[in-house]
């Protein structure tokens, strides 16, 4: 086993990554889309562990820069204070962060060969290279982003053992779509209220909105990007700012496949847009765009999500990921919350004392806690 660092996903290679079955978030196409749409002083490196034949045993991307919204989950006062400090004292005061994992993940992970016996050894090699890359780029903070609860507990222990503090990140939402038909999903997966709600949405849309799916959607991006941007600008937690180029690259991706669901008013005005990524095992409703100038934005949001669910069922895809936001409507659609963890390490001694506080603050993002809020009708 030997570690290696690459500067471009193209150097790692599509075939080697696909062989690892890395999941959608770490698929070649999505990581390449991300790499080609980085903006500002953000750089990416790909950390790999390979065997003597050059086959990948483990890999993960790491993004380093000061334009990562690393404190999005922290209290607003801290975010404002940080912004004021950088505004007053300049970019030299901006915290440089090394974020490991996919910047647009719905389910964070560390892709590894399933047959690999020495997982801990491979993980340690990756983490050693993460420290090296972080220091090389003068990062003050290292993060492993949104590690899903399914990552073996022993692997998480290795990460903690490498000096990372473990806290909760926003939970992800998964829907079981292993049904023969959408009707079966409605009948068997949803509560009576959920079922009633879903049917009502489609009835309300009759004669007002229509939905269609476009597989080759690059030409649509100038028409829909503004809607996606509006959703980002309204979001409570604004993580990665994606430029239009990201959507262009996604439209061109073949691993995974992508498509765009459009919700159009009868006069042709686009009311909403949903970008879906999928392979044969899973699907993600990756980015949603809504025209908030229309009074029916809630209806359009639901229609797009239900159509996403229909698409997964029609393709026989058993699992659908709905992201890390809008927990109330998504649980009504039958989504389950699953814990994810954030690992943080301070390379700057000044930041070290803040880690226990960050960990304490982020306890509020446990799935149990978020679920308790959802029962009261509050999306965290």
């Amino acid at each position, binding site marked *: 086993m030997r570690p290696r660092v690459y500067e471009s996903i193209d150097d790692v290679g599509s075939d080697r990554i696909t062989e690892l079955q890395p999941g959608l978030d770490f698929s070649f196409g999505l990581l390449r889309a991300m790499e080609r749409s980085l903006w500002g002083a953000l750089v990416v490196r790909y950390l790999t562990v390979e065997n003597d034949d050059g086959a990948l045993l483990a890999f993960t991307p790491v993004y380093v820069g000061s334009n990562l919204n690393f404190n999005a989950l922290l209290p607003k006062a801290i975010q404002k204070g940080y912004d004021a400090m950088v505004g*007053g004292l*300049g*970019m*030299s005061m901006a915290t440089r962060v090394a974020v490991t994992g996919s910047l647009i993940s719905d389910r964070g992970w560390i892709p590894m060969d399933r047959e690999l016996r020495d997982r801990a050894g491979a993980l340690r090699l990756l983490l050693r290279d993460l420290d090296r890359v972080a220091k090389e780029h003068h990062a003050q903070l290292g993060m492993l982003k949104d590690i899903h609860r399914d990552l073996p507990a022993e692997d998480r222990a290795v990460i903690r053992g490498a000096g990372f503090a473990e806290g909760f990140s926003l939970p992800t939402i998964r829907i079981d779509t292993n049904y023969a038909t959408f009707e079966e999903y409605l009948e068997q997966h949803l509560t009576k209220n959920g079922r009633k709600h879903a049917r009502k949405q489609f009835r309300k849309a009759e004669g007002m909105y229509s939905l269609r799916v476009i597989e080759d959607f690059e030409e649509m991006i100038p028409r829909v*990007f503004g809607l996606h*941007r509006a959703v980002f600008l309204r979001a409570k937690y604004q993580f990665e700012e994606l*430029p*239009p*180029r990201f959507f262009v690259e996604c439209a061109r991706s073949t691993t995974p496949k992508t498509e765009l669901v459009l919700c159009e008013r009868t006069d042709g005005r686009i009311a909403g847009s949903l970008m879906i990524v999928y392979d044969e095992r899973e699907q993600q409703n990756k980015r949603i765009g809504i025209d908030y100038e229309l009074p029916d934005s809630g209806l359009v949001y639901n229609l797009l999500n239900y159509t996403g669910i229909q698409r997964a069922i029609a393709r026989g895809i058993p699992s659908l990921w709905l992201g890390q936001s809008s927990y109330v409507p998504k649980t009504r659609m039958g989504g389950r919350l699953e814990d994810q963890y954030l690992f943080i390490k301070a390379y700057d001694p000044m930041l070290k004392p803040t880690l226990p506080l960050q960990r304490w603050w982020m306890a509020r993002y446990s799935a149990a806690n978020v679920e308790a809020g959802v029962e009261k009708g509050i999306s965290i």
Partner: protein
Amino acid sequence: MRRVFLTGAATLVGAEVLRALLHRIEVHSIALLMPADETLRTQTLQRLEAFAGPMPLSVSVITGDMRLPRFGLSVEAWKTLASSADIGIHCGQREVPDQNLELARQANVAPVENWIYLLERNPSLRLHHLSTALVGGARRGLFTEFDLDCGQRFHNAFEHSKFEAETRLRESSVTDRVAVYRPSHVLGCAATGQAFDFGGAYPLLSTIAKAAILPGDARARLDFVPADYVASAIVTLALHNAAGTFHLACGWETSLPVRDAVKLAAGGRGRSRGARLLPRAAAWPLQLAGASSADGLTSRALAFTTARDLLHQGPVFDTYLADLALKPAGITRPAPASWLETATRHAESCAWRSRTPRD
């Protein structure tokens, strides 16, 4: 054959737009909005001829004031104007980065109301509106061509009023016939440095070229574009009936770190080293004395506030739509590292004043 009505021809970008229009054979006629005062009008036309060459017969003059209702024209003249053009290019603006919002609105928002009225009268007329990427204000982060209101704060009345003008256009019933151009910091022609007027980003350039100490962040990026690139982009897209918003900016990749921009500007002035940069929070005592600008192009107080506001990291301009539209036409933006010193040198050689007669 296209008929063009142009306002603000006697500005840094407007004069370049006029020069580019004069070279386009598909342009049948160009009407210029000029001041009613005859002496001023004659002087302005002389300056334009000195810059763009003799005016052919296809160029006509309409006298009025863009800040007044109907541009100050009579009802009859207004009706005639409405039917006499199919491309409107609005380059007239007040660029002073001060806090006088009333004056800024008169010059930057009121004319837009006239344009909307004009477009409502003539359904085949399309407007090409010169705005600024600085409508992104003090936002630190990505600013795309799809964005306008991101909850940003504005440094000055210029940014604020241009934002209001764009908002008005977006909300109007004619919005699908409007193209908005948002250049970043505009300077003269890339190859020669020649500029009709030392407006645009020249007050900023003169400040970084002259001052010994400035409030600024060495690592922040400055986005400069040459006026001839802006003009050729506007004219090309206008003749292709473009609509939407276009960032005419160099983008993050080729924008200059402030430390490099300061060095290049100082080099253009013959200085061996650029201004020392102080963090904004530590530079407030400088406000008392202000900052100097080359040949006093701007007041010391304005030079200080311009540097304080613009030499720190602001929005990063995404240029997706502009790239998509301009690539087929072969219009590319030159990197400022290759021409900023030339622009400074040319301004120095003119003592930061227009060579053509001025009012």
